[in-house]
């Protein structure tokens, strides 16, 4: 086993920013808006670094797909403890239509190329909320997947994953190589320390093009329109249960 872990990190609009829709309803305003690493990706990086600190894996490689600015996100991962980075350059129109299908193809190709033992991703990105990349990557590689992980432990060549599911918590044991996706309660990401930020400057980030990996980026989806959610309407107060049922019938909800 190579002991190498691939961690996917995505550059998204910072969670604290108030989102605005573009006037032509084609998307969301991203120019001049603060971006940072997807919070679930931070949790994924933290888990990978923790595994390395426990000496269960040997190398953490941070991967990001996007334009030049994605390198900042990789640098943050390096400052948290990743060993090296891979920047898959995708810009312009390709970047606007980049979705889970394309990213999972890229990750699958990289996993084979880097001989990865584990791929750890965030469960979903906070800009599109797709929750698909991890699952698609596992399917393309025909690897087992441990998604919505709230606890991860390694047991030789197997991984024990406690998953957060609708009914509660589910514990599964899967063989490596495998894909894991991090949920909120997996860990609390560390702050990058000033010395680590400086050390991260010396770590390498390799540049790769999707064509080099033999990946076709054409999207099967077309975004027609982006709108803000409807303004919340005022509610109504009713006196009795009978009134409530009547109102529900009137508005056609029942």
């Amino acid at each position: 086993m190579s002991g190498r872990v691939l961690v996917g990190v995505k550059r998204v609009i910072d969670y604290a920013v108030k989102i605005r829709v573009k006037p032509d309803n084609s998307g969301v305003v991203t120019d001049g808006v603060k971006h940072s690493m997807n919070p679930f990706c931070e949790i994924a990086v933290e888990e990978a670094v923790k595994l390395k600190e426990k000496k269960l894996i040997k190398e953490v490689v941070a991967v990001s797909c996007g334009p030049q600015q994605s390198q900042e996100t990789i640098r943050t991962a390096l400052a948290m403890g990743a060993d090296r980075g891979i920047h898959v350059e995708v810009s312009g129109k390709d970047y606007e239509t980049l979705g889970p299908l394309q990213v999972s193809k890229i990750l699958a190709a990289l996993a084979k190329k880097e001989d990865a033992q584990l791929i750890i991703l965030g469960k979903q990105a906070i800009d599109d909320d797709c929750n698909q990349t991890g699952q698609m990557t596992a399917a393309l590689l025909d690897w087992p997947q441990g998604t919505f992980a709230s606890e991860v432990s390694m047991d030789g060549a197997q991984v024990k994953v406690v998953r957060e599911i609708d009914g509660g918590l589910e514990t599964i044991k899967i063989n490596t190589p495998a894909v894991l996706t991090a949920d909120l309660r997996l860990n609390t990401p560390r702050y990058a320390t000033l010395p680590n930020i400086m050390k991260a400057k010396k770590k390498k980030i390799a540049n790769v093009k999707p064509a080099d990996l033999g990946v076709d980026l054409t999207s099967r989806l077309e975004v027609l329109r982006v709108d803000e959610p409807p303004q919340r309407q005022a509610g109504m107060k009713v006196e009795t249960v009978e009134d409530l049922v009547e109102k529900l019938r009137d508005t056609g909800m029942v």
Partner: protein
Amino acid sequence: MAALGPLSRTARLGCNLCRKHRLVFNRNLQRRGIASCIDPSYGLSEEQKEFQKVAFDFAANEMAPHMAEWDQKEIFPVETMRKAAQLGFGGIYVQPEVGGSGLSRLDTSIIFEALSTGCVSTTAYISIHKYGPLRCAQPCRFCNSPFYCFSEGVHSYRCFISGSGSDAASLLTSARLKGDHYILNGSKAFISGGGDTDVYVVMCRTGGKGPKGISCLVVEKGTPGLSFGKKEKKVGWNSQPTRAVIFEDCAVPVTNRLGAEGQGFNIAMKGLNGGRINIASCSLGAAHASVLLARDHLLVRKQFGETLANNQFLQFKLAEMATKLVASRLLVREAATALQQSRADAVSLCSMAKLFVTDECFNICNQALQMHGGYGYLKDYAVQQFVRDIRVHQILEGRCIFSFLCSRSQFDLSRLQEKLA
């Protein structure tokens, strides 16, 4: 960042994921919002932006939620400061060989500005603490210990003495040599951290009158003869305890002296330039946070049938505040760069930066409070704490003295250099 209130990081994440509320943006407000005009990351290198990001995150998650509690209950947040030290904030411009982070003055200013948005008082204390490691003119047992950079102990630095405010060179605490000890007598008022910290760096008179008779001694807590006055009740800076430090026949070993005898004043003055930049940077952070708080309030508060943000006078006022904030920031960063490069204008720039920035930033915070109307006066709103906390920045680190330095240096630089040599 500070405006986000006491929600924890994960709770806020949860909120965002549910996307429960979205503000419909008022189209009358300019497209390039005020937040991007006053964004403190413009013109910085990639690395500096990384430092700033860590500092902002730390301020928003570890300091801002507790800022009000620390102020009202007068809590000295040692644990939070230790966490900050572990990230490297304890000795930012101290050399790595003695446990610091080895960064520049400009990096330091950027970091303190960001930390200040979380809690001015605590950040100011971290910045004062940093004086320590710079004091060492010759090797002594304190120089190489990591606790200088906060990881183990917390320490105070003193210069201010009752009886000689701005006129530091006339200080009266005496230190008579007796065998291999100095015997200290005297008292010093307004010592930040006094009584709660482990090490005190004291300027005292070992020789004759004037600056050349002053030396610098390190006194550890628990030394017989070292005692403290009552904890002062202050308008702001309440997360730092302030007490008078009293020396009554306090014996301090000669090996605790930093530098040679008579070098104390020089050591103090050298630290002052950096100290002024740091205090000015803390004021910047508070002003930045206050402008964002004011903007948020204007977008929400409605009077005369529309939000205050539509009021032309307030729009102009906010624009002025933003302008003065950016002007102040540029002056501080230039002073930091000058100090780092030991330029000829470093001393006067640091003095000018401190004078201008502390005044302007206080005015900005004050204006922000005014824009909140009656709510600004309530302790539920953070803006009043920023106003109270940075008011003292206009007082300490010398006010008239550097106006004096500024004017003197215009007319008689050679005599000034002679005095400080």
